[in-house]
């Protein structure tokens, strides 16, 4: 058995540790390092630069205004110009440069920010396997694929699926029966209580005809009313599209799950 047991020892309490100050400084270095890495990416540098240049222009105007207002300003005007106009202008140019740099070089990916401002920016990070709200798949003719076999409601550990089966009208004769379309049973009611659902995905695994899926990439949103969380058949079918799984034989684009 490779590897071993390693005895770890706590760090020595050297004078540097004991004096608080050095380690505090080091800590500040780390956190402020994060600050200075994240902060510049969130500053609208070009806007800042424009504002600073406008301020510089205002400063220059103010300096000239002072001179004309006073009428006796004989010396020191250069300094006034430098402080009121030159310094903001220099800072503004720096900001513009930073903005240009950021626009063409640095990206937010170089920072530590890993955020999706979710409600403002729709999340597009759902992986293909993400289990979201349920949906019911369709047949070619747009009817529901579900045959009311009750597998999903049986396997559901949360008891959240309620199915009432109904008998489809028999086709006039066996020869007119379309395999996989004319099923004997179909769900009269198919309800899922998303509030009870624990999003385990066992129903999808249990479905023998690819009728129920959770790959809608929508996670259950909030509703004001509890009753709104009970999704009925039509609502579940709205998200669904035609399944390419074919009962009784391989069809085109066969969807293999495992």
């Amino acid at each position, binding site marked *: 058995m490779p590897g071993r047991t390693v005895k770890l020892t706590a760090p020595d309490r050297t*004078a540097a540790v004991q004096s608080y100050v050095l380690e505090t400084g080091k800590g*500040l270095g780390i956190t402020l390092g994060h600050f200075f890495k994240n902060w510049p990416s969130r500053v609208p540098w070009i806007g800042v630069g424009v504002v600073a240049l406008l301020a510089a222009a205002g400063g220059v105007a103010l300096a000239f205004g002072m001179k004309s207002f006073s009428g006796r300003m004989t010396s*020191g005007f250069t300094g006034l110009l430098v402080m009121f106009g030159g310094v903001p202008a220099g800072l503004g140019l720096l900001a513009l440069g930073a903005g240009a740099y950021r626009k063409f070089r640095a990206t937010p990916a170089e920072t530590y920010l890993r955020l999706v*401002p979710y409600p403002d920016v729709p999340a597009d990070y759902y992986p293909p396997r993400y289990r979201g709200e349920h949906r019911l798949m369709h047949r070619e003719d747009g009817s529901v694929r579900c045959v009311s076999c009750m597998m999903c409601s049986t396997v559901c550990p949360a008891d959240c699926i309620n199915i009432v089966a109904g008998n489809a009208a028999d086709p006039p004769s066996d020869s007119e029966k379309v395999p996989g379309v004319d099923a004997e049973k179909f769900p009269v009611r198919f309800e899922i209580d998303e509030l009870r659902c624990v999003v385990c995905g066992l129903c999808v695994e249990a479905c023998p005809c690819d009728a129920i899926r959770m790959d809608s990439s929508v996670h259950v949103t909030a509703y004001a009313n509890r009753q709104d969380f009970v999704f009925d058949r039509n609502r579940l079918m709205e998200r669904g599209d035609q399944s390419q799984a074919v009962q009784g034989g391989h069809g085109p684009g066969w969807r293999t799950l495992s």
Partner: protein
Amino acid sequence: MPEMQQIFAGIAWNDGGWIELAATLIRAVIIVLPVILLMAVYTWMERRQASFMQDRIGPTRANIAIAGKNITLFGLLHLMADGLKFVFKEDIVPSKANKLLFFLAPILALAPVVIVFVVIPVGGFFAYSHWDQVLTADQVKAYAMTGDAFRLQASQLEIGVLVIFAFSGLGVFGASLAGYGSHNKWALIGGLRAAAQMVSYEVTLGLTVVGALLLYGTLEPMAIANWQGHNIARWGIVVQPIGAILFLAAAIAESKRIPFDIPEGESEIIGYNLEYSGMRWGIFFMGEYMELVFVGAMFATIFLGGFHVPLLHADGFRLGSHHLAMPHIAVVLVQMLAFWGKVVLLGFLQIAIRWTLPRMRYDQLMRLGWIGMLPVSLANVMVTAILLLVFTSYNWNMGNYWIASLLVTLLVYLLVVAPQQTKTDEDNVAHDEAHSHGSH
């Protein structure tokens, strides 16, 4: 009461007296208004800076929709949203609370912090009738003598620093009465902790500046700022490094922020202001950020040259023989900006410290205050006194004082701080052994 008479004698109740009164009011407004504004900005800064230190983007929700776009102004609108929330939130008073103390506590927490700003100079003298001319320091002084200059300080008190400590010491009543009056065990613990902590650190806070005050030879904040002046080698942080660090630590402890936020300790005891809600809580909140401004202003005045800017003389920037002359108004404006800039920078530092360090424990805090910081600050006072004596008796150039002070700082560290640290360590061990026996 001769003292009272003396104080009132200072105001001559004639025509000139009314002008003086009006001028004081104007000064008060110029100084307190930025403080309140800065306090509001700090609440924003704390959110925003913390968010970037923690890899977040901070407040984004409060916004104004203009033409279909949500204007958030970098989260600045949260200030307004907060204010509105505080005002309109239900004000809950616990039924068993001591009503008088409960109502009094927020006021006592906020008022003293505002008062201390009266003695803090945000700039030098503004010779308003000669605002457009290049004035030398002597000229400004002369105008100040004749009353032709406006003092950028609400009140010039010879005992300025003492006034500051006196009023900031009153802040303890706010916290401890809030804890006592709330009729809540957690709040009570918070209040008790606040009382003990703030009283203890008041001592250290006072002693850490004594070294600096010995050098400056005055208690008047404007004079303190002027002693340091535009020469960075004379600034308090250079000539009194130990004093500066200890002062900052003690001041953070006074303002009850991490690592010294024992009275509040959000995750342990929710704090002395646990039972407060609405604007009453908002006042505590304001007081806390006001203290942030106050600590910055104090530190800037005593250790960072106050409103002075390096190389900026009364008549403009001077470096060697180069001279960039500036009219008086420009110098005054730059100095005021520099002062507030220093305060904001210190606010930045305090916020950074808050979001970096863990919190101390109550007994460790006390140990640090009484047997860590107090002896060191005493040693600092002694060393400063001896050095000062040597410098003055041999008539050495005070311009070189900073070299000596840095050397001695090192010496103080080796002789006083280092042994002290090992000692507290042993204490810790003994203490912990006692614990482990108790627990198992």
